[in-house]
């Protein structure tokens, strides 16, 4: 009498195969979500293009993000700041997205931009330190000047931060208290 393991397992084969298919399905599901429904590139209330502003018109980053070198947060420009130029830039005035902006201004409403880059609340990240240390905006934010809709390039996770701190030999760069306090 021969004993065959595969024979013994035969009844379990089909459920196992179904399980494998389901697990593969889970990965496929996660991939689909990550690729086509990712929150890295959210739809913004106004289809604002960094490419048009930073690349085509060569506006420096800190012209709009004015607090980057003196505050933990870089700052999103106020509606007044946007209007400051857009009242003057005549040929752009009738574009639908600019009209949206004008609408916010007329209603004196802030624009609810969706946050793309974020770190958890227990991380004390500050733009000021990084900008003053000469880190270029693009090193963390990617080639923003080429993006029409802003997208997150870097994972913004702790290993990613620490890698850079290690590579640049940042003073106390690996100390817990540098970021978590």
């Amino acid at each position: 009498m021969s004993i065959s393991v595969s024979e013994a397992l035969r009844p379990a084969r089909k459920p196992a195969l179904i399980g494998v298919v389901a697990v593969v399905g889970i990965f496929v599901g996660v991939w689909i979500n990550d690729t086509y429904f990712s929150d890295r590139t959210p739809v913004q209330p106004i289809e604002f293009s960094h490419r048009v502003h930073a690349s085509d018109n060569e506006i420096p980053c800190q012209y709009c993000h004015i607090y980057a070198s003196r505050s933990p947060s870089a700052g999103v420009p106020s509606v007044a700041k946007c209007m400051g130029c857009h009242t003057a830039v005549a040929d752009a005035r009738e574009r639908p997205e600019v009209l949206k902006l004008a609408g916010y201004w007329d209603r004196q409403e802030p624009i609810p931009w969706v946050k793309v880059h974020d770190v958890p609340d227990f991380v004390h990240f500050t733009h000021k330190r990084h900008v003053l240390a000469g880190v270029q905006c693009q090193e963390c934010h990617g080639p923003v000047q080429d993006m029409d809709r802003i997208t997150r390039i870097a994972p913004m996770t702790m290993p990613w931060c620490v890698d850079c701190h290690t590579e640049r030999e940042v003073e106390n760069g690996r100390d817990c208290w540098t970021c978590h306090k």
Partner: protein
Amino acid sequence: MSKISRRDLLQYIGAGGVGTGAGYLFAEAIKRPVEFLIPPVVPPEDYSPGVATWYNTVCNQCSAGCGISVRTREGRAKKIEGNPAHPVNQGRLCARGQAGLNALYNPDRIRAPLKRVGERGDGAFETISWDEALTQVAGRLGRLKIEDRADRVQLLTGGIRGHLGELFEQFITLLGSDRYAQYDFTYPANLRLANRLSFGIEHLPYYDIANCDFLLSFGADYLGTWLSPVHFSLGYGQLRQGREQRGRCIQIEPRMSLSGANADEWIAAVPGSEGVLALGIARILVADGTYTGSDRDAWQRALEPYSGDRVAAATGVALERVQQLAAEFGSSKASLAIGGGAAAAGTNAVASLVAVNALNHLAGNLGQPGGIIFNSAPVFGSATRHAGLTQMTELAASMQDGAIEVLLLHDTNPIYAMPDAAGFADAMAAVPTIVAMSSFMDETTAMADLILPTDTYLEAWGDDAPEPGVGLPVASISQPVVARVYDTRSVGDIVLSLARRIGFELPVALPWANTKEFIKDAWKKLYTELDPQADAADFEEFWLAALQAGVWGRVEATGGPGDAPAPSTIPDIDAAAATFAGDTAEFPFILHPYLSATLFDGRGANLPWLQELPDQMTSVVYGSWIELNPATAGELGIRDGDLIEVESPAGSIRAPAYLFPAIEPGVVAMPFGQGHTAYGRYAQNRGVNPVQLVALQSDQQSGELAWAGTRVKLRNTGERARVVRNDGISRTLGRQILHPEENHA
């Protein structure tokens, strides 16, 4: 390879589909919630987002007048710290000061002007506009003025100091009334009267705890609630550790307070006998030749009755102990006696405090470092309209008689902080119009017909000269640290706009557009009269410098009028025995209420941080409790946590028992502060109010409510009540840590 049947294929597709769906949902679930970056429409001028801005202003949680620095971010107050430049608190701050943020952002603040719609006290109000509210009030006041009946307007506020008090004063005078009273439960009226009787100076002197070698405190909880606790805590630290010779502290009180716990020795004298003890010590100082003044014989005669035996019998302190205290008090290089707390709130309070003053005089402590140093009068705006029980009872009678047509209230809560028997609530019912200028719906505000919501102190302009002063002229400007949170106005603005609307000579005499202009104008006077040699180039620079620093002071001008005024009290020196309301046989226990270091006289009860802060001595949070000695409890068969009915001749309340070894048997203690029937979600219906046990008795000389002069009886209801506390149990479980025989159950 076997063929896959159609049925199997469908199963695989199903499994794959379910898996994919699950994977998709999983990925969706672990995404961070969407956050928004909402920029301002117009960029802020006075801050950068993310960068903290600190504003210096004045704390208003008690009357010490500490300077505070408030950290703000994006126009929101985040944290309050002490202002390091302010001489009162020197960068430190107490819990009450820290909790000021809870007042600013309190969810139960009154957010818009309210008009009563239901019966008075029902709590039914409708929101009205500021314009309507001010027009109504101004119309009512203006009509009374036209009819020449403006003396029927009564203004009742809390203990307001600074120029704001003067504004109120001017307003009510211009209106044609002299009815302005300040009811502040914690105002040291007895101490001020005693100082006037002893020294001829009513404003509070500087008690130099920092430099004293021997501090004898008669009931004054100087680390918790007495006059200026943060400053005295600093002084205590200096006394203990800040110098080569460590000073000694003795605390005389029937129930151990925070200061008692930090003293070298705690002496539980019979309640109300503090003055006798002081004079007993004084007699020894005169008899043994420590006092060498020319009027020594007169003192000797005056103190004759306070012989050792009599003092020992009256105070319950052993004769040798009194002699030791006298020897130490007399021989210390710098000794200091202070009186406060329950010792300054009996029927003999002023006499007791005069006795303490006499003790200081005889030991040569007046005008000496480490003793009592006389301040010059506060730079401006001392609270002078204080109303004690006598005046408040008179006011209640006037209201009952219909002599008051309009009652204007601000920042005072007599319905809570006065015994019901005083009849203030009933008398308010007889007043046709009650207008409350208030930030919170407290018991008194709830009775108003019209409520004008006021800014908290963190949103308003004002100023303050601290009292007790610090030996040199000091004053601070109070400035808004954030924009108003709700549709409120500062009380100064309300008074000024009322003046404009009433007309007559009021807008001419009170021409300022707002409180800021008024305060600035007042400081212009201070600049030209008091500090013409200031470093500033002009007033604007002076003003900005004072605002920025949070304090103005003149260092060179120390000392006060006459360094050691001669006490003129020898003929009348007499520590009358305290009388207690209630028959000794029927009410065997003396009630010892005390100011809570957190909720104070109850004004802090609506601040959640203070509610959840454990009491320093008992570790209890949130509720009320009644402290009694384990020996007393044993006799009555009361266990820890039993619900006790406490009955006095004036009323009765129920609270759980807390067995507290550091209280004299025969005395039961309760903190003030809880037992609100209104005042927002954190205060309302929590604990009981011991003021309602206090019998209507006043000090014989000052007419102040003698809140420590009531007897009570206890009855165990047989019910159990939960006392929320952090200390676990007070027993050492046979480990004999405290003393060998300690094993009480």
